[in-house]
């Protein structure tokens, strides 16, 4: 270890080596000073941030910490079975007329004798929101991405405009679009679908055009040489190369959109998110746990299914961590 060595060990060095050693040790010292200074600055920023967060919060951290488990205690359901009664809308023995234990009233009747438990119905809505908006978003991104890639579009202006459009769509907070639409169309899934689709166009569009830019241009040259039009070049030279990646990214996006539509539900977009934020706000322990279990199972299932599908469609290459454009 060079760092640990004292000058005594190097007393036999020649003048030129000596200079190099001195210079090296000088650099090590400078580096250490920089490290210490940056750590100190970092700690100050962190301390200030924590203090600010604590001051800005409505409950102070150390004041609330002892009561943290009180709150968890209020979320213990009367019995474990109660969670499943809440999940499947079965009558509860604890029913006292309040909405807290009145699970059966939420049943969604399909026919006179057949019903879907409410939470499953809400979950279906949320998942359908995610799927529909992924389809719409991926279609939009697919149509746009070819106009944003350097290798297919000569005009810099088109490219610039399309890229900026994607950036804006991506950066625009989903909840704002959802909120604006909810004010117009009244609260419900359609606002969520449009908001998530808009975001998806921007996020997928970026990933798509990057894939297109990395495509091998030899097939394109071949087609160009035989006089193919721009549309034919895209269809026969680029599309076969990029389609597997497009599918992979779209599946990854589906997973992200399931979460996104849950969040939008919690701010008024319908679906399970809305029921969830209501039940947690009203201290309905059994209902809350039922929803959490359902959400967990759903997210795991969607992840596994999409991983399986991706592996089947394109093999192992699709398994980079797909959080990039979240």
């Amino acid at each position, binding site marked *: 270890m060079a760092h640990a060595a004292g000058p005594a060990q190097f007393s036999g060095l020649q003048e030129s080596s000596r200079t190099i050693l001195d210079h090296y040790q000088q650099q090590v010292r400078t580096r250490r000073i920089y490290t210490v200074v940056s750590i100190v600055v970092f700690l100050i920023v962190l301390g200030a941030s924590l203090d600010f967060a*604590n001051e800005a*919060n409505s409950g102070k951290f150390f004041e609330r910490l002892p009561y943290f488990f009180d709150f968890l205690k209020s979320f213990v359901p009367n019995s474990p079975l109660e969670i499943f009664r809440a999940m499947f809308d079965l009558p509860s023995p604890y029913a006292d007329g309040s909405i807290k234990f009145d699970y059966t009233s939420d049943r969604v009747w399909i026919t006179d004798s057949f019903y879907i438990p409410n939470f499953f119905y809400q979950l279906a809505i949320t998942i359908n929101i995610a799927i529909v908006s992924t389809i719409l978003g991926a279609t939009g991104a697919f149509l746009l991405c070819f106009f944003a890639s350097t290798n297919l579009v000569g005009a810099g202006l088109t490219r610039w405009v399309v890229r900026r459009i994607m950036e804006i769509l991506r*950066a625009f907070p989903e*909840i704002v679009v959802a909120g604006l639409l909810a004010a117009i169309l*009244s609260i419900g899934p*359609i606002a969520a679908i449009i908001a998530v689709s808009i975001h998806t166009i921007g996020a997928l569009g970026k990933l798509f055009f990057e894939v297109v830019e990395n495509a091998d241009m030899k097939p394109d040259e071949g087609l160009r040489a035989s006089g193919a039009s721009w549309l034919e070049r895209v269809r026969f030279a680029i599309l076969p190369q990029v389609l597997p990646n497009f599918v992979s990214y779209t599946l990854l996006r589906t997973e992200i959109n399931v979460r996104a539509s849950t969040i939008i539900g919690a701010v008024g977009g319908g679906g399970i998110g809305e029921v969830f934020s209501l039940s947690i706000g009203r201290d309905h322990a059994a209902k809350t746990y039922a929803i*959490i279990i359902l959400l967990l199972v759903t997210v795991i299932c969607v*992840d596994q299914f999409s991983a399986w599908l991706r592996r089947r469609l394109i093999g192992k290459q699709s398994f980079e961590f797909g959080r990039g454009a979240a």
Partner: protein
Amino acid sequence: MSNLAVNAADRERLLAAYPEVFHRSLMQRWGLAIAAVAVFVYLAFCFSFFNVIPTFANGNWDRAAIYLQDWYSWRAQPRLRFQNGQVVPQWTSRRQYPDGAAIDWLKPTSNGGYTVIFGSDDRLDVTPSQVDVYIDGKLYPVAIRGDRAVLPAGAPARMVQDDNKVNVRFGFAGQAEIRNNQVYVQRRFLGWANFFFDTQSPFWGRSVTSVAGLMLFGERLDPAQSNPSLALDNFLNNGSWQHGDILSKLMQTLVMAFVGTLFATLIAFPLAFVAARNITTSRPVNWGMKRFFDFLRSIDMLIWALFFTRAFGPGPLPGIAAIFFTDTGALGKVYSEALENVDDKQREGVKSVGAAPVIVQRYGVVPQVLPIFISQSLYFWESNTRSATAIGAVGAGGIGLKLLESMKTNADWDKVAYMVLLILLVVFVFDNLSNALRSRVMGKKGS
């Protein structure tokens, strides 16, 4: 394309040589079409399931126009009440004018009424017994009867009788609702009113140069503080725009993302070593740690945020905690995968000189993975700046909550626009910052 001339023997040979091209399975030939039809059928089903047509038909589309106009313009909304044979203006929204201000589009008349000017040819002359509506210079007198306002005969389409009131639209300039006891006026102007200083401030209504002059050379308006500090104070405490509050909420959002990601990084770093199969040799421990990461990750940030909001109350703390929990799971997974991909030669080298296990990790592993770790953390930081807005909206504090509150009141869409612009700006700045840092850490290819 022209037909290729192929003789029978060649045809046979080609068919035999490339069966995979000429005899493709049903799925290979029609898969795309089948998928397209399935998607179309599914979308059609959802179209009816989500009641798309009724929802759009019942939408308040004129509201949409108003809200979008609010993004770049502002409304002054006086109510002209009829009291004791006089017209008394009453301001409801955000005190856009100070008491007794001379307003050039709202002037008292000699007979106790008011004139509201919407354009050179459009105006209202309001008196308690009659409201004279001028559209394109033509007069349409609206009579005020005991319990209703009455539309005159021959009124244009821009004037509508709605139950017992008369609505008049003047296009962008505004609209008026004439009732038996008041005229509710909306007058719209381009730009954001009182953006810098509210009507209580001594700087209100001055031009840029005049404000700058006052700040640099003017006498102290408030003996207690200098003019620039007074101006800053007035700006931050602007009653209608609440700049100070919004900026502090924005700061909360940034702090949530920063501290949450930082803590997640600090905790995920050592845990990833435990989860990596090539570093910790005990399989059950690896497995347990990886499932722990999965657990943290699979419970959504939203659920963590709601839980912690219940525990700590709304504010940045639940946001920090939610980001911290989910990202520890996500970063732990990414880190341990990076660790499992390290080159073993360097560890062997350090081991061969007899170094202790901790030193082996420090000099044999960390230099290889540190750039990846930092790059991933920066990535998460960047994406969390965006997520922090979303979880803020479910109650975790920050600008998300403020945004949602403003949207729920349905009156402050200019403030919503302002906050959205701020968020976009911050996201843009942080994207670039994180990209710049990342490419410094990783070299050019890191982005």
